[in-house]
């Protein structure tokens, strides 16, 4: 058999999720070859379809038309879209038919919502015993805080990530939407583990995912450290507990910075050569890892004196050519311009009927002999006919009735 088949070809996923964390988990499955059908009510569409910025609580969420939100278009690629009004019985029945024709059902509604709609795991498994249902929520499906609401920034705070992020002498700092993307990746992993198990045994299951806990699992080393020594890990900015220099240095220009990390005496000797101060390698203040760490701020000043007067990209190039780990602190424009990302096709170009050509970030892996199926996100209801007629087998007249009764758009 040919090896260039996408790994999840033949798997169908129904996606009842919205905003970022749920949709991106289903998008990852779509990129791996699954057929992913996103279900939205036309009166209750995914918020991200028409919002510009999210989630920055005090920024202005300006509205755009429903197919043009960049958050939506970035986390729903390669999917199909069907509109079904789930406040109507007919809408729920169709959603249920679709769900039981599928292998995996994904949602990130408040705990209990899918059950109230009649689309809960217990209900679905009566009809489709081997179904896999993944419910991703803020705090999980059970426990005293199950009904509490949250966003990425809040999960990052509760899970313990925010406390350790920021300057040592200033306030902690929460993430942006990246916490949702992270949780989505972990959710997709759990869904595939369930799928693997089903392929071996025929058994389906329910996955209850807590987005706060997702953050905590990424600091498991620090949590175990606290269990062992009762010392609360604090913020360290860009510093490392052992290595120095290990910081971000100001470069010539406005808000231009480079990151530089040195992990050994050899690397430090190389660095002193690049910045034209070889005597520093012999200087007792900086000669060993321990002394460099002890005199770190003095060392940082010496380095920054050099970097402040020079061009960022030139310096990074010099450092990297010499074999050091250095990088510019890139913004969006730098990322799009990065020849390395370009050479690796890290961005994908799609043609969007309403917006035109878009260059968006692709998926974070490459597989030999296998192009990832990253296509533009669907327009609202774009695949209504495909889903209702071809998959669910409705007649044209039945579809027309649904439209008249506003079950579909």
């Amino acid at each position: 058999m040919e090896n260039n088949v996408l790994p999840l070809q033949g798997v169908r996923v129904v996606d009842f999720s919205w905003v970022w964390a749920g949709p991106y988990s289903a998008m990852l499955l779509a990129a791996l070859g699954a057929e992913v059908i996103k279900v939205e009510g036309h009166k209750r569409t995914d918020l991200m379809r028409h919002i510009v910025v999210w989630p920055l609580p005090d920024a202005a969420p300006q509205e755009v038309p429903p197919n043009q939100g960049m958050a939506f278009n970035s986390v729903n690629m390669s999917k199909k879209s069907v509109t079904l009004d789930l406040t109507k019985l007919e809408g729920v029945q169709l959603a249920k038919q679709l769900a039981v024709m599928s292998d995996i059902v994904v949602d990130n509604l408040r705990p209990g919502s899918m059950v109230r709609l009649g689309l809960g795991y217990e209900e679905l498994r009566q009809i489709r015993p081997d179904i896999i249902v993944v419910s991703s929520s803020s705090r999980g499906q059970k426990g005293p805080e199950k009904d509490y609401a949250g966003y990425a920034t809040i999960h990052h705070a509760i899970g313990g990530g925010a406390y350790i992020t920021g300057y040592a002498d200033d306030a902690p700092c929460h993430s942006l939407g990246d916490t949702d993307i992270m949780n989505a990746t972990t959710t997709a992993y759990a869904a595939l583990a369930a799928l693997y198990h089903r392929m071996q045994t025929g058994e389906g299951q329910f996955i209850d995912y807590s987005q706060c806990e997702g953050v905590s699992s990424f600091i498991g080393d620090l949590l175990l450290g606290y269990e062992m020594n009762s010392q609360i890990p604090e913020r360290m900015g860009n510093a490392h507990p052992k290595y120095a220099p290990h910081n971000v240095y100001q470069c010539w220009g406005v808000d231009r910075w480079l990151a530089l990390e040195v992990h050994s005496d050899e690397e430090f000797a190389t660095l002193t050569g690049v910045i034209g101060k070889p005597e520093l390698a012999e200087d007792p203040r900086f000669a060993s890892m321990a002394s460099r760490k002890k005199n770190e701020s003095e060392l940082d000043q010496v380095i920054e004196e050099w970097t402040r007067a020079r061009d960022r990209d030139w310096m990074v190039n010099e450092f990297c050519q010499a074999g050091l780990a250095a990088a510019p602190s890139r913004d969006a424009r730098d990322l799009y311009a990065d020849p390395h990302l370009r050479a690796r096709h890290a961005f994908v170009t799609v043609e969007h009927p309403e917006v035109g050509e878009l260059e968006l970030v692709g998926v974070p892996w490459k597989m030999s002999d296998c192009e990832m199926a990253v296509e533009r996100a669907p327009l609202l209801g774009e695949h209504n006919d495909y889903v209702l007629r071809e998959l669910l087998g409705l007649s044209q007249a039945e579809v027309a009735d649904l439209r008249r009764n506003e079950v579909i758009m």
Partner: protein
Amino acid sequence: MAGDALSGIKVVELATMVSGPYCGKLLADMGADVIKVEPPEGDSSRQCGPFPKSGPCPEHSALFLYNNTSKRGVTLNLDKAEGLDVFKRLLRWADVLIDNHPPQCLGNLGLSWEAMHKLNPALVYTSITPYGRTGPRADVKGDELAIMHAAGLGNLLPTRSVDVSRAPVKMGGYAVGYHGGVTAALATLATLLGRMKTGRGRLIDISLQEVILALVRVNVAGTRYHGTRWSRVPDRPPAMGRMKTSDGYIVVGAIENHHFRALIELMGNPEWAAAAGWDSLAYRVHHLMDVAPMMDEWMLQQRKDDVHHKGAKMGIAMGPINSAKDVVTNKQYAARGYFVEVEHPEAGKHRYAGWPYKMSATPAQVRRPAPLLGQHNREVYCDSLGYSLEELERLQHLGAV
């Protein structure tokens, strides 16, 4: 029916620190048979803390203990020809190889992807590198700090900074490593599912820069196509988001109208909130700063946990900024059984962070503590690979094992 989701999958992990080991841990805690191959001096994470009060010891590193649960551990010296032969035998045995060394590392030992593929056509080779295996920067070094900034996320931190003249920062801990690990685990598992149909292995090329780039995918697109600002310094001083309480900080996300209405009620319907406009998002966007000092003053009187529970019960999205201590004593986590107790022969019994997914049929579990250095040499080399005890002794004598 309880069971292990991934039982039967055989994994060799040639990886250090966080990204590769976390990938291996995710698979092992789900039931895969993961053999961790360490150089004679051990995974370098054994040298990194946090350590117990008794001080540094390679069998006591929390970083190592957490990221290597459920694995068997062997030592192997790949610089010796005999060691390399043993490694090839492991590759013939395995379904998956996880490797987070620089792209040319195994190639220089004669184990390019092509060579491995010939050795075992079904092998899935998961390679995790700073910048990927191709492209002009393939051989450039990069670790947590460099990658966090190389890929864009660092440039947006600290969020809500007030001072653009201060440097952007990395995310705390080993965020790059953990993100890389879970992304690699996802791609690996997908490839194993695809392999059921084709029987053929693949090379999976994970670039940590692209892993972190994926996290800022929306910020990148928004900046280019919506003209939103890309900066760690907000357009206007923050009101909400992170707020200071009497005993720490809380993150408040009263975004929608009903959230803000509830927030006003939570604050005891202060006089300033009597104006009609507060029920409109547009009004709030332009006037929030007028009342920010009053909101800040009110919040400073509150304790973070009290205000969290009161506010959340009223439907406001909010959450305290928890320290490690707050996380390990969190009642919601306790109710879900998030922490699991693990007894390690040297480090003792401790509670470890568990998994954010509760799987009804195949719950993840720590099936054994992280291995001592070389703990399973005999079991793996003799029982799994079929070396005789004499052969193993010879290998040990040669310094290969």
